[in-house]
Every structure is written in structure tokens, then in C-alpha cells.
């Protein structure tokens, strides 16, 4: 298993290099001008000087390798320095956002907690709803519970979050006035009252995303349980005189969780990516919103950096999912 993991990690390097090159090229070749957002009164020659100073007139490959060095070496060191206080970061240039003129990594570090809080909570809520839902639905297949559950999960899976988000705002914020429609990221929890405010403001985005996640995962859970409930080993477990609880929650569940855990692991990068649209709807200034603003403003360094971080996370969690598969299923051995 260890050799397999190491081999996969080494193989991930060319994959990521290739992805980073593609990301760099796509963003580079898109017809957006980093100076387009500047006032029209700036004369063309000044505009050209700005472009020159940003380095956008160098050959593409030169730009790529300069950027790559910053991306994989300088910026991670800055990140480590920020966290630990060790003086290890090099003095050279950093990847600077065109719009804000501050290092992209700083922007990401500022935005990440909001995303992890809101989207991460919704993911956990989604899983906590989905697992029992899927298990009971499968165990009582075609019962009223299953019919209702399957219908709701189909709706939850089919209706986009920008619709449910707005719907929730209209119902719970505008008409009922229970929850605020905007997520205030400056709010700090210091005592019980502010905690209640925090819970109230996080409920709607968490429910919107949680419903979507729960729909998706519960469908996998149900299908996987159904696959296993009719297996011969379930009859053996019953023939041993084990109670239904043990048969279902130990024998069947352990087998059914194998594909579901893989799906859960594969979807984790999306948590870091933030639910781009939901963050917009509830005005959560997380990573997703950062990416949208950067795309609209032609802020190439931000788009590139965020995309590369997503790529790293996706490759990493693919690897984790594969390794987990081997850990959970004794029949799978990679060595």
C-alpha cells in the first residue's frame, strides 16, 4: 500500500505539471486585457508600460516557467512563513493580483475560512442526512419512506442551488423573516447571543448546499445498500441468528460504505472550491466569490492560482479515494 501511494504521488507530478500548463495557457490565451479595467483616460503608452511591467509581453513559455517557479516554490514558502513565523520566504516577486495589487496567496488565505465554514458544514450536514436516509430507504425499499425520500432527493439533485437559494431567501428571509439573507463574514462569535446570530445566518446557505449534497450521496448510499442487501452473505449472517440491526449496520453497511466513501472523498475538493454560485447568492466572500470576481475583472494571476489549487486538491483526493478503497476493501491490494 505504501509503495503504491508513493508511486501514485510521483505519478501525480507530471499530471499536475500538464494541468498547470493547460490552465496557464487557457487563461493566457483568453482575450482579456489586465488593463481593461483601468480608467479610459490612461493614455495608450502608459497602458503599454503597465503591461510591460506586469510581464505580459514576454514569450509564453518564459512567463509559464517564471509563474511555475513562483507557484510551486516561492508562494508555498510564504504560506509556511505566515503560519509559522520562520524567516524562510525568498525576497523575490510574488504572484500579485492585478485588481487588488496584493499577493494572491494572501487573498486565498483570507477567503478560505469562510468557504470552509459554510461549505464544509453543509457537506458534513449533507453526509449526516444522506447516510441514514440511504440506509433506511434501501432497507425499506418501495415503502412510503423510500418513495418520499427518493422523490425529495431527486428534486434536490435536479433543482440548481441558485434556484433553491433564492427560493429559501424569498420564503425564510423575506416572507417569514427568520434568517438574514446575507451571510456576514465580519460577524464574530463571542458569547451566546452572537453564536445564535451566527447559527441563524449560516442555516440557509448550509441547508441549500446540504440538501444538494444529501440528495447526491443518499442516492449512492441507497443503490449501494440495495446491491448488498440481496447478497448471500446477508443470508449467512441471518442464519447465524444475528439481529437485523447487526446484519444491516455491520455486515451490509460495511460493504456498502466502500463506494460511498470514495464518492465522498472525491467530492471534497468541491468543498474547498466553495460552491461558487451559492456563495454569490448568500454573499459569502469565500473562494468561489473570489474566483468569480477575478474572472470578471480579467485578474489572470488569481484565476490561475485558484485553478491550480483546485487541480492539486482534485488529484490529491483522487489518490486518497483510491487508497481508502484499498483500506476498506480487503480484496483490493495494490502491491
Amino acid at each position, binding site marked *: 500500500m505504501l509503495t503504491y501511494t508513493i508511486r501514485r504521488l510521483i505519478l501525480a507530478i507530471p499530471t499536475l505539471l500538464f494541468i498547470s500548463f493547460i490552465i496557464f495557457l487557457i487563461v493566457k490565451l483568453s482575450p482579456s486585457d489586465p488593463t481593461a479595467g483601468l480608467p479610459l483616460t490612461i493614455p495608450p503608452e502608459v497602458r503599454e508600460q503597465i503591461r510591460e511591467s506586469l510581464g505580459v509581453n514576454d514569450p509564453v513559455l518564459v512567463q509559464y516557467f517564471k509563474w511555475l517557479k513562483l507557484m510551486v516554490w516561492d508562494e508555498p514558502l510564504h504560506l509556511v512563513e505566515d503560519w509559522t513565523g520562520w524567516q524562510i520566504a525568498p525576497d523575490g516577486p510574488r504572484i500579485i493580483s492585478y485588481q487588488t495589487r496584493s499577493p494572491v496567496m494572501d487573498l486565498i488565505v483570507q477567503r478560505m475560512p469562510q468557504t470552509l465554514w459554510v461549505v464544509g458544514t453543509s457537506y458534513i450536514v449533507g453526509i449526516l442526512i444522506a447516510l441514514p436516509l440511504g440506509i433506511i430507504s434501501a432497507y425499506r425499499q418501495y415503502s412510503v419512506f423510500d418513495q418520499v425520500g427518493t422523490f425529495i432527493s431527486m428534486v434536490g439533485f435536479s433543482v440548481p442551488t441558485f434556484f433553491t437559494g433564492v427560493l429559501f431567501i424569498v420564503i425564510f428571509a423575506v416572507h417569514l423573516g427568520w434568517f438574514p439573507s446575507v451571510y456576514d463574514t465580519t460577524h464574530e462569535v463571542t458569547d451566546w447571543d452572537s453564536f445564535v446570530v451566527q447559527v441563524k445566518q449560516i442555516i440557509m446557505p448550509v441547508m441549500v448546499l446540504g440538501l444538494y449534497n444529501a440528495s447526491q450521496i443518499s442516492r449512492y448510499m441507497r443503490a449501494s445498500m440495495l446491491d448488498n442487501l440481496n447478497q*448471500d*452473505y446477508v443470508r449467512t449472517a441471518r*442464519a*447465524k*441468528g444475528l439481529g437485523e440491526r447487526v446484519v444491516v449496520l455491520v455486515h451490509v453497511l460495511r460493504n456498502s460504505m*466502500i463506494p460511498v466513501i470514495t464518492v465522498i472523498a472525491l467530492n471534497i475538493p468541491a468543498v474547498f472550491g466553495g460552491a461558487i454560485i451559492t456563495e454569490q447568492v448568500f454573499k459569502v466572500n469565500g473562494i468561489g466569490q473570489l474566483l468569480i470576481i477575478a474572472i470578471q475583472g480579467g485578474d489572470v494571476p488569481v484565476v490561475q492560482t485558484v485553478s491550480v489549487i483546485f487541480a492539486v486538491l482534485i488529484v490529491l483526493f483522487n489518490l486518497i479515494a483510491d487508497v481508502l478503497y484499498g483500506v476498506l*476493501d480487503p480484496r483490493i491490494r495494490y502491491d
Partner: protein
Amino acid sequence: MPDGATPFVLDVKDLKTVFRTRGGEVHAVNDVSFTLKPGELLGVVGESGSGKSVTMMSLIRLLPMPPAEIRGGRVMFEGQDLAKVPEETMRAIRGARIGMVFQDPMTSLNPVFTVGYQLMEPLRKHMGMDKAAATTRAVELLELVGIPDARRRLGDYPHQFSGGMRQRVMIAIALACDPKVLIADEPTTALDVTIQAQILELIKDLRQKLGMAIVWITHDLGVIAGIADRVMVMYGGQVVEQAPVRELFANPQHPYTRMLLETVPHIKGARAEKLRVIQGQPPILAKAPESCPFMARCPQAFERCARQNPARYDVGNGHDAACFWDFKTGAPRDV
């Protein structure tokens, strides 16, 4: 007479099992009666769909209910009627007082738990053993069924065993709590011939050592001839003939049994002889049979067979057959 004084370990009377499906009811077990003496090996033969497995599965209530439903009859075991006891009691009997071995050892064990875990489950549940005691007993059991290096193999997963070895593990699980009755549902069908012979030897051997009664379900008459004390032939969900094994092979009294014996290919004899078959299909009974279920395929059928379903007529030597035709006199039975 006190309960303990009955000469039978298992006394089944008029057992009736029905499946309720969307296409209507299927009468799978129709008034099946049989007895099992302590230490006896009863062979149950019949083609696929004759109701042999369903009969045994319904008497230990291992069929999914619904769709299955026990409509009537009684199953006396250790002074209790298994058709009526609460599920709780039934669970305490299954795997403890009545053990089961199934057809396909490749799928009958749970792939994600070790063999040791699966073997110790009934020990811990029914006999209240702690881990150490259960481990000791599990090693004993694996040695009993002829698995070498037993202690080390407790930590292995089912996929690390061959088919024959897995069936030995299944037998060990079934025998874990020293059951009075072992129900073996085609335990050698999925194995190749040499392994089949080994398993048969093992069962014969274990029966002598442990003295449990065995119900052996099969469609292989050769196996039955070598191992059984008494044979019960099933057709259309009912018992059509029952006799001590020698008597049945020497003197079959039901046309179905006679034809079944003729289908066994012989090594000696004319080379050009084709394999004999019984033409037609076994019936799927949408209601309890009012005529002889074998009538459509029977060369002996006459007018009465269409009017009445024959009862089991005693023909002497502990032998009975459910047929209106008397092969001894070559004329219809005078009843």
C-alpha cells in the same frame, strides 16, 4: 408425554408457504410433512423449483417475509413450534440449535470481515464467550473441519481461501454452537468433483463425531446414495415419495422418482445411449394443487389424477409414495 420424550428432533406437519408476488400468489410449499430422528441424515431431492430449499428455509423462517408467508402447519423443534415462536426466540435457535450451510461458498461469506470474526460471531452471540474463549473455540473448529494452520488463518479474509476451504469455513460456522440439526442446502453443488468428495467425507466424519441430525438438500442422486439414511423426493412443493435410502433406490414407487433414477447416466451399458430426460417443466402453482402436480409429465397418469391430489400412501418398509398408481400390482391403487 412430556415434550422431551418425542423421538424426533424435528417434526414438520403440513407446512404451507406462499409467496405473494405482483403476478399473484405462488404456492411453493404445500402441506409438507416429515420427521427427523436424532443423528439421522435425511436427503431431500428434487429438480430446481421443486420446493426443497424453500421448505427448509421456511421452517427456520429465513425467507424474506414479505413476500413469503407461512400459511399453516407446525414445525416442532425442542418442544416449540417454530412456525409460531417470536422472532427473538427464532434468532436464538438459528445458528445455535440449527446450523446452516449454503450452496455457494464464494459468496456466502462476507468479503470485508476476517474468517475469524465471522466464525466467532455466533460463539459470542449465542454462547456468550469473550474474545479469548471464542478464539480458542474458533481454532478448534477450523481444525475440526480440516483447515491447516488454523490459528494464523483466523486473520485471513474469505478471498484468501479456495472454494473448498471456504465451504469448510461455512461448515465450521454452522457447527460453531454444536447444533442439533444441520441444514445443508446443496453444499457441494458449486464445488468441483474432487472437492465435493472431500466435503462429503468431512460431513460423514463430523456426523460421527458430533452426532447431529442433517438435512441434505441436493439434486445429485449419487451424493444421496452415498450419504443419506433416508430420502425424501419433492415435486411441485410437496413430498411425493419418502423411504430409507436402499429401499428408495431398489424399489421406487412414484413415477417421478422412477424417471429421476433413469436420468442418471451410467458408465456401463450401450455407448450410444442418449441421456434420458424428463420432458416438460415443473409446475408453478398459482393455487394449492387440486390435482396431482406431476400429472402433465407422468406416463402413468389416468383419469383420477386430474380430479384429486394423491395423499402419501404407506407401501411398507417405512416407505410412502403420493401416487394413485400401484407399481407392485401394476394397477390403480384401491383407496
